[in-house]
């Protein structure tokens, strides 16, 4: 995505993925932070993965129900981010961006690296995060892959079971990798679980949904149960027939589950679908 506008702009293009999104920039933590926005209703703040903000059919569907705000993380835009050493630091910058958006409380969705950041943001400010959804979160990475090291075919397979769906997928641009990957490496660490962080997670009251595609080739889904075990108010859900990029592999399923969780919280465990065939 490119961005330079300072006012909300709608790219009206029905049928184009992300076509309903406009964008604007807010100033936060010394950065011009770009925010892509669509929809009305309760705010759903979305933090993207290491590849930067990406539209998806799933976000389009969610924007039909919620006010979706996709935030470009500081350091992924034109300005380098040398100010942070870890996810706590990045989460503080994102919190400043959320403040600049005027959001007092919000639902939070983090994808991959953005999932790790979202986890830290919720830990820092649980009062304002109504619900937390972690899509293939990258905090713990036992038996996982560094996507920057994958060949083209393996890269596509790791991210997508259905590359024919949603947004086109291509290995990242080398210039992008050179610019952003040092920051990614600094934030992500070795992906192991330390006792101190486990203790922090055990205090998080926020209701949390953790999603993994069963075919995820980036963050191994075996890491999913760790979140379920450590987060006291969490639920773990696997998406069949999806890899790392669930939003593009199975957009309807993703939007359905996340939308239900955002709307009903843990009541999403209750099936309220009418089973009556005929009166």
């Amino acid at each position, binding site marked *: 995505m490119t961005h330079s506008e300072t006012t909300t702009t709608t790219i009206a293009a029905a049928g184009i993925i992300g076509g309903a999104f406009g964008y604007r920039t807010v100033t936060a933590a010394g950065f011009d932070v770009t925010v892509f926005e669509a929809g009305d209703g309760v705010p759903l703040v979305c933090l993207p993965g290491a590849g930067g903000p990406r539209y998806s059919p799933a976000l389009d569907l969610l924007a039909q129900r919620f006010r979706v705000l996709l935030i470009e993380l500081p350091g992924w835009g034109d300005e380098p981010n040398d100010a942070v050493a870890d996810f706590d630091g990045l989460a503080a910058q994102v919190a400043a961006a959320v403040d600049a958006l005027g959001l007092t409380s919000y639902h939070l969705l983090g994808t991959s690296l953005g999932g790790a950041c979202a986890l830290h943001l919720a830990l820092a400010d649980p009062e304002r995060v109504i619900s937390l959804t972690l899509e293939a979160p990258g905090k713990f990475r036992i038996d996982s892959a560094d996507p920057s090291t994958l060949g083209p075919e393996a890269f596509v397979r790791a991210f997508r079971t259905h590359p024919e769906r949603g947004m086109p997928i291509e290995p990242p641009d080398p210039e992008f990798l050179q610019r952003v990957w040092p920051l990614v490496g600094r934030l992500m660490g070795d992906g192991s679980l330390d006792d101190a962080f486990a203790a922090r997670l055990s205090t998080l009251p926020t209701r949390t949904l953790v999603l993994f595609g069963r075919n995820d080739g980036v963050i191994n889904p075996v890491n999913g149960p760790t979140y379920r*075990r450590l987060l006291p108010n969490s639920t773990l859900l696997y998406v*069949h027939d999806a890899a790392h990029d669930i939003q593009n592999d199975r957009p309807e399923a993703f939007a359905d*589950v996340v939308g239900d969780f955002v709307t009903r919280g843990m009541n999403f465990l209750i099936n309220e679908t009418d089973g009556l065939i005929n009166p």
Partner: protein
Amino acid sequence: MSSILGRVKLEFFQTFAYQGPDHGSTWPAPPQACDPGWTAATYAGGLDECAAAVDAGFDALTFAEHHYSPKQLTPNPVLLAAVAGQRFGSTDIGVFGTDLPINNPVRIAEEYAMLDNLLGGRLRVAMLRGTPNEYFTYFDNPWEARERVEEGTLLIKACWAEPEPFGWEGRYYRFRNIAVWPKVCQQPHGPRILFSANSADGAVFAGTHGLDIGFSYMEPERCAAHVTLYREAAAAAGWEPTADNIQYRHALWVDESEERAWASFGRYAEGGLFALFAGASDDTRMALGKVGMAMAGLGRGAPDSSGLAPREPGAPPPPPMTVGPPFVGTPDRVLAQMRAVAEVVGAGRIEVHAGFPVTGAIPTADTLAMLTLAGRELTPVAHAESW
């Protein structure tokens, strides 16, 4: 015989065909024809046959799910597997298998987890699509059978392996909360799962996901082609199947006399598989045919005068149903057949059922005698280290 093969396991598939008077050849069979006294005799006699099979040296007793019919009184094979597993405490038990698309996969995972523990790890299972009539049982969509059996199998594997409660957002299955207790006895993966390789798709799926494969009645040469696909898919997934991963099922009737063997076998097998539905109306049989075509990959579309729908664009034509010869004859002849199947298919397990009781039940006494002969003449040879 030359020493070509290693040990081949023989497994006895107990169908529990209703021992009562002639029950016709329609499906579904009217329940009013079922007499509880004969049902009790059927189960008792069937278990006696299982005992004879164990005494004869068969390596496993196996059961399968079938509905609404006197041909097999096993709508829930898990119950019979539990009974047999308790009665025959050292014999392996197989449920080959569950008609997964017409069942709740999580419930199946729970039942098999219980059974695995009750049997102390002697259990193997199969996840199958079943025969076309099974899609009339609970009003399930046969066009979804292939995808449901695949997704359901992966879900069951997850049920047995996941250490924490989890949900499943599938294409056909949605569960928001799964936590199977008890854990499977066979750690870490649970009972071995067998998948039908009668279709090429099934062979590839099994290889990709580390499953065993089984063939039912199919011509050995066609099986061999599917085994090649299975091995290729397994290699791509990083593992190498052995003969023990491959099973072949057919009917058995052995007798000292070739003529008597065929006479005994033919007495109840007239008409073969299709005789199972011979008494159904033309319309019903057309509908069954349509389900069969659906399971073979034909699209649903608008029914034409033949009751069949046009094929989906680009879909390969369904392969014709080809049936290999049953294991019928003298011990030497049957052993030669079995050896040929084991060689051609690469199967290390041969699963047999006594005769082919489609027009009536084979008397228990006849089956017991046949199994005694099998124990004397077949199993010792099949169990030899080199055959």
